[in-house]
């Protein structure tokens, strides 16, 4: 707890400096990214990067071992008709499915990410969240996607949220921690920025927009605000933090716009799946369709791309 206290003190000094965020200005900036024209070689390179950054996700009450196995196969064989394609970055599942997923992707380089801390609401006592996290890690999860207690955050109990993240970080051991802010519930960009700073200083390896269960999810405005928090932290400390927009990114165009934003805000160093991820279930096939178009010159029907 001493360590947490030190961190918290350090954070609170920073927290007082969390800059104001002007929504209109952010919208304008984001619109500029969307006017970037990505063509030819840069388009193909961007699409392949995007593919390799996807956390292929299934997070449903009705998930079964069968469903998870099928998704894991897809993660490693995105479109075998086209040789040389990368795999996705990770598969993202509930803790109960981690063991199965781990076995299915073994040796492929695809990581297993598990949501935890009473995902998606986070409305559970801390010891339950710790147990949830440790279980997922013990089952073999390489990455943990936790949710913050939005209720506590909105009630102004920032210390609680900070301690919770720091505690879960400890429970993660070697697993990398992604902290889901659930920005759709935080409502303002000022809150998004505040929560980003809080999560980063509390020990997040990645910050992530959404659970995918709440709308709006990963809007570019929200992602931009979080990227700026990452940038300020990097400029101050030299420590890189990863970013994962999740939910609502289902087209190649939007994915490329996100990559443009990452490149122009943080630089090309962030353009690997070590530092940037897309949490998405349907993005992969749209990217594949665009890659096939770029390679062959013609669009193929969606029936030619497997749905798992």
């Amino acid at each position, binding site marked *: 707890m001493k360590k947490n206290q030190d961190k918290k003190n350090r954070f609170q000094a920073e927290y007082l400096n969390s800059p104001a965020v002007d929504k209109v200005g952010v919208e304008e900036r984001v619109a500029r990214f969307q006017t970037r024209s990505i*063509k030819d*070689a*840069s388009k193909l390179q961007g699409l392949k990067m995007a593919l390799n950054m996807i956390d292929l996700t299934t997070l449903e009450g009705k998930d079964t071992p069968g469903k998870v196995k099928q998704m894991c196969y897809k993660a490693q064989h995105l479109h075998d008709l086209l040789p040389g394609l990368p795999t996705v970055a990770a598969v993202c599942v509930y803790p109960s499915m981690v063991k199965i997923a781990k076995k299915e992707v073994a040796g492929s380089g695809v990581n297993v990410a598990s949501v935890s801390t009473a995902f998606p609401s986070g409305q559970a006592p801390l010891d339950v969240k710790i147990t949830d996290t440790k279980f997922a890690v013990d089952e073999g999860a390489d990455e943990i996607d936790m949710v913050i207690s939005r209720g506590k955050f909105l009630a102004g109990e920032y210390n609680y949220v900070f301690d919770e993240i720091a505690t879960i970080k400890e429970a993660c051991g070697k697993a990398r921690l992604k902290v889901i802010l659930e920005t759709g519930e935080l409502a303002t960009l000022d809150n998004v920025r505040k929560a980003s700073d809080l999560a980063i200083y509390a020990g997040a390896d990645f910050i992530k927009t959404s659970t995918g269960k709440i709308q709006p999810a990963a809007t570019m405005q929200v992602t931009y605000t979080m990227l700026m928090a990452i940038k300020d932290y990097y400029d101050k400390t*030299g420590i*890189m933090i990863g970013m994962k927009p999740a939910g609502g990114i289902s087209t190649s165009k939007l994915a490329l716009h996100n990559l443009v934003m990452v490149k122009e805000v943080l630089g*090309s160093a962030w*353009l690997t799946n070590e530092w940037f991820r897309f949490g998405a279930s349907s993005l992969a096939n749209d990217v594949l369709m665009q890659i096939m178009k770029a390679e062959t010159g013609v669009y193929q029907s969606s029936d030619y791309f497997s749905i798992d």
Partner: protein
Amino acid sequence: MATKKNTPVVEWDYSPSLEGTSHIQLKKQYDLFIDGKWVKPSSGKYFQTINPANEEVLSEVAYGNEKDVDLAVKAARKAYKEVWSVMPASERAKYIYRIARIMQERARELAVIETLDAGKTIRESRDIDVPLACNHFFYYAGWADKLEYAFPNRKVESIGVAGQIIPWNFPLLMAAWKIAPALAAGNTVVLKPAETTPLTALKLAEIIEASGLPAGVVNIVTGFGDTGAAIVNHADVDKIAFTGSTNVGKIIQKAVAGTSKKLTLELGGKSANIIFDDAPIDQAVEGIINGIFFNQGHVCCAGSRLFVQENVADKVIAKLKDRLNSLYLGNPLDKNTDIGAINSKEQLETINKYIKIGKQEGAEMYQPTCSIPKKGFYCPPTLFTNVAQSNVIAQEEIFGPVLTIQTFRTVDEVIQKANNTPFGLAAGVWTDKGSRIFNLTTKLRAGVIWANTYNKFDPTSPFGGYKESGFGREGGLHGLSSYVKLV
């Protein structure tokens, strides 16, 4: 935690994405547009207009002289008397709407030609200049048959023949700002575009021709300063509207002194952009960038004097420098270019002269590392820190991508410094406090003040200056009032 970049960084660059030019039609030679016809200049002289991005000749344009101007004014007078001032206002509106619609239809062509002739980026021509120009026509078309409601309890009459002289920084947009309200109020027009950027005005003449506007209502006479002088000095012109440098503005004001000519002047500026410590810093940085580097700084209201509160100055300057490195400078036709070409060789020399002065004055210069195309006129975005009010670069209008940065401590101090200039065109205020915004807007002596944004234009909003930035307003109702007689 990774402090080092574990994986090798693969650069992701944007492939060239040039806007096509095959759809545009440029004639080898353009004559004067007088009385609805294309007329050869009486001198027989033509001058070349070039693409400042690569110095290639685009076309040859007629050099109008006094005789040609006289012809144009006579045509305008005849059209005013016989057609335009006696036409039902609702009919006038239809023509103006028609012009706006044809402009929209040909927006892509206008944008490309604007970029070729002026050096501005295609993104700006396409997303700002051309749509805004169309909107000015649409907006004023709406007023044409509602003039009696525009100025309650006053009777409204048109003025007559308006002589209009426009600059090279927003060639089509300035033509629209001038022509649209003049026509809506029932006046006829003789317009002279700038010598480095005549092409979109000539394209507009083609559009006006296509719209079936009665002959002589709009006349476009290309040429140099002496052509403009001929318009100003013509005895049968009732109103002069000029946008351009303060020096020329002064000459014009002297020339019309003692005549009955009405005059509006939109001149230079050295506008203050003020950043308080509680501002949304990252958005303010974008606003500073947009304020000074929009259109390569060729903007009369450019936020060329930056005032940053001292306790956030280091942070803001560091962020600004960082941001400069992600701007793309290059071919204005590339859709990803952020900073295009300087409008002319002369202007580039002026800018470089000021950069040299800035260095000699001991200010610290910062330019990002970016490759400059070999041909054409380019200037990298430039910051000067360690600047005082007494520096020449903080006093005189540079009209280029050069920002001077000063710091301040208190509200009163920054108001004093912001107002301590012969100019008074625009200002920007960045703060999270609404009350502070209102405090500053009442005390800053500038015609336009933006709060938490910069360089936003709209046809409904008046634009114009105090002091040496000129007088009269363009845009909105105020813009209309410059083209009517209230009786």
